[in-house]
């Protein structure tokens, strides 16, 4: 039975790792499976802006996305999950993307992967697991007369190393790194049209795992260095050099037969994070969800100016208890207390899980969440308070049989209420005046058979926001009311064949209703129609992938994203005075060829 389970686990991992259209990006796979809204700045989930969705590496906040929207994670170097309504040990807005650098396995391997997009070399030994990857430049060749592009490969690295391992204590060092660099010169333009963007992120984490009897202690310390620099023309720059020192510590104890409860798991933890931002900014205003933009910024726009150092400190403590109330009922309740600077918040959370029948379970979760106002120019507004989110969700799940076969499915509904959202009054003044509501339902059904895995998922969601409690509700920037996915994987001998079809309702956008001319600066500035009152057309695309094992040490694949080249509009380009617009379309058909061998 164990062998069958392991084989099944391998099969499932192969399916997700080789999801058509994702080309080795675990976050892209997760976004597909969870039907997240994919945006230029990351994932939007349950009505949260991408920066509200925390991205954690080894339990610490870490930027994950390259400039071309690919994540810096690899299947070899990390395992990841999307957590809805995370437990009391987590701060944030109710959803988070967690990645953990993969621990070394008990065997030796050094696979090399080459694709038309990237090269990846990996290593696994008894104490060390590491991976390094270089992405090829992501832009098309320059078009004559348009912008000339110089990019260096984006680099990723993940390392996990066991420093010490004994019966009671294990000590592990983990590191995550990514680097981007892109330079643009307008081929037909002067030197002051030069654009350069670079970013280097390195996180070091030391973890200590201690076990003794019923006690478990998980302690860790981490250091993040995040250096981002943007320069455009002769006037605009946006540099943020961030250094963050953090520690997280948690004690767990498993108890039996306490206060009439057969089983009681108790947790107590605390964390502290101190961050230093060295900022040098002369740039256009930072974008905010409630301020419409065309993305076109005049080169002389430097109204956002700041030079200096900002320190932030976040301290949190939590406690929770999980009890089996009956043979088929498990309850978790807990409390998180958090201080963001001088703001103190109390966040109760709980979850009730019921086994209704064989392979059928239900869960009810509710909790309060706080997000510190520490994103972009929020740092320059010390008067801001944390944003508040309250989330309630219910799920009903049917699981596969113990052999890992059969039908499975989930139906669920959720409701999120957001208050104290940070809003921009249009002149760069920020205040906690906003509100938001998100509610939706999700349904997923599938079957795992001997040679087939098939699954279909649909999400129906409504997400709106208000600038102030008395203002009219309008759609959220990434409100995508209908999302539908279907995927099929077929195993035939050494072949694995996969297909994925996605359907998405178009995102909202704000129409440019006209423009006014600033005669002194010689620029046209857009006048906007009501915020997010229009929608882009529906998007749909088919992705296919064929994998073939060649002997025991070689594997090749062909992935074709957007097979029938459906290119719906996903944005607009405008001419200089906004009288003509042209659609920016979804990516064209993209074939990728890859080969992976064992050295």
């Amino acid at each position: 039975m164990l062998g069958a389970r392991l084989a099944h686990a391998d099969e499932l991992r192969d399916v997700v790792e080789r999801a058509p259209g994702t080309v080795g990006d675990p976050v892209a796979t997760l976004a597909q499976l969870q039907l997240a809204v994919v945006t230029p700045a990351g994932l939007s989930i349950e009505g949260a802006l991408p920066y509200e969705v925390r991205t954690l590496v080894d339990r610490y906040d870490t930027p994950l996305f390259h400039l071309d929207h690919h994540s810096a994670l690899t299947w070899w170097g990390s395992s990841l999950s999307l957590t809805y309504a995370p437990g009391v040990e987590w701060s944030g807005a109710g959803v988070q993307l967690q990645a953990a650098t993969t621990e070394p396995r008990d065997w030796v391997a050094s696979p090399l992967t080459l694709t038309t997009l990237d090269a990846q070399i990996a290593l696994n030994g008894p104490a060390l697991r590491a991976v390094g990857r270089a992405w090829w430049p992501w832009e098309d060749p320059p078009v004559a007369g348009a912008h000339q592009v110089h990019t260096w490969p984006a680099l990723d690295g993940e390392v996990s190393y066991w420093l010490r391992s004994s019966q009671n204590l294990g000590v592990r060092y983990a590191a995550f790194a990514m680097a981007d660099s892109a330079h643009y010169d307008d081929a037909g333009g002067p030197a002051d049209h030069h654009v350069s963007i670079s970013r280097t992120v390195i996180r070091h984490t030391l973890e200590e795992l201690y076990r003794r009897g019923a006690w478990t202690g998980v302690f860790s310390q981490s250091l993040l260095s995040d250096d981002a620099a943007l320069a455009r023309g002769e006037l605009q720059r946006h540099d943020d050099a961030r250094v963050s020192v953090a520690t997280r510590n948690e004690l767990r104890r498993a108890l039996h037969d306490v206060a009439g409860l057969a089983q009681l798991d108790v947790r107590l933890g605390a964390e502290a994070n101190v961050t230093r931002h060295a900022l040098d900014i002369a740039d256009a205003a930072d974008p905010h969800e409630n301020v419409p933009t065309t993305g076109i910024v005049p080169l002389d726009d430097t109204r956002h100016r700041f030079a200096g150092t900002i320190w932030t400190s976040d301290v949190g403590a939590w406690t929770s208890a999980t009890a089996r109330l009956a043979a088929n009922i498990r309850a978790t309740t807990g409390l998180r207390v958090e201080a963001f600077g001088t703001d103190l918040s109390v966040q109760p959370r709980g979850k009730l899980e019921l086994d209704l029948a064989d392979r059928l379970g239900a869960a009810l979760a509710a909790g309060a969440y706080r997000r510190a106002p520490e994103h972009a120019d929020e740092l320059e507004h010390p008067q801001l308070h944390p944003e508040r989110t309250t989330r309630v969700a219910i799920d009903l799940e049917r699981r596969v049989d113990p052999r890992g076969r059969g039908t499975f499915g989930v139906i669920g509904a959720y409701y999120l209420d957001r208050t104290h959202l940070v809003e921009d009054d249009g002149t760069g003044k920020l205040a906690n005046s906003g509100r938001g509501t998100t509610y939706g339902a999700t349904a997923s059904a599938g079957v795992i058979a001997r040679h087939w895995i098939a699954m279909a998922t649909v999400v129906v969601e409504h997400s709106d926001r208000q600038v102030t409690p008395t203002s009219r509700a309008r759609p959220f920037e990434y409100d995508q009311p209908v999302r539908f996915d279907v995927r099929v994987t077929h195993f035939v001998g050494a072949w694995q064949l996969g297909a994925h079809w996605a359907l998405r309702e178009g995102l909202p956008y704000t129409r440019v209703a006209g423009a006014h001319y600033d005669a002194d600066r010689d620029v046209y500035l857009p006048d906007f129609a009501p915020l997010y009152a229009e929608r882009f057309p529906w998007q749909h695309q088919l992705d296919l992938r064929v994998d073939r094992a060649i002997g025991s040490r070689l594997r090749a694949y062909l992935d074709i994203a957007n097979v029938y080249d459906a290119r719906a509009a996903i944005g607009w380009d405008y001419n200089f005075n906004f009288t003509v617009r042209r659609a920016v379309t979804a990516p064209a058909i993209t074939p990728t060829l890859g080969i992976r061998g064992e050295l």
Partner: protein
Amino acid sequence: MKRALLLLGACTTRPEVAPEAWQLAQDRVVAVRVTPPALAAGEHGLVDALIAHADGPTTVEPASVLVAAHSPLFGTVNYLFDHYELIAPDESTLADARVELGLAAGADIPLEVECDFEQFKLITDKQVLLGRHADNPALGPVTVGGQPADATIVVAHDADIALEAGGVTTRWLTSCGELERSDQPAALLHTAGACGGELVVVERDATGGTVWQVWPLAVE
């Protein structure tokens, strides 16, 4: 970093959306001029604009609507018989306005005016300085293909013609051929087939002063 991501999207290899800013053959306001651009107490100023047309040569037209609704000195804008004029207030009114606006004694008072021109729904913003007199800048030497610009410019077809102007903030426009670096003093005109039209240069200074020159252009 969202700003960088948005910027990256704007920096891709997509060509500009036509019509571009250097193209004269479109209905648009090319430049707005206040004469003079800075007014001493009691001084009068006129507002006019260089207008481009899709189907004809450029014209110079006075403002059809002029307001300064957001300024305490909105009374500077006057309609006299058949046209608008700016008339700077007297010294004591200017002194009161400086106090109200939190400006130092003797400082220039910026007056934001909005103007419309006959056939355009477009609102144009223009700044005028009150409290001292200044003139519009004079157009510096202009060369076309290395030669001083004549009253009529004649250039060869299928050629690259270097354009040079002396100003710091310059905008070139043409109705024949294509322009590169049209927002720089040194621009390049690519001519194609034979064509008759115009070449325009506009120069602006830091205080809102504006000057333009229009040449008939023949590509032979």
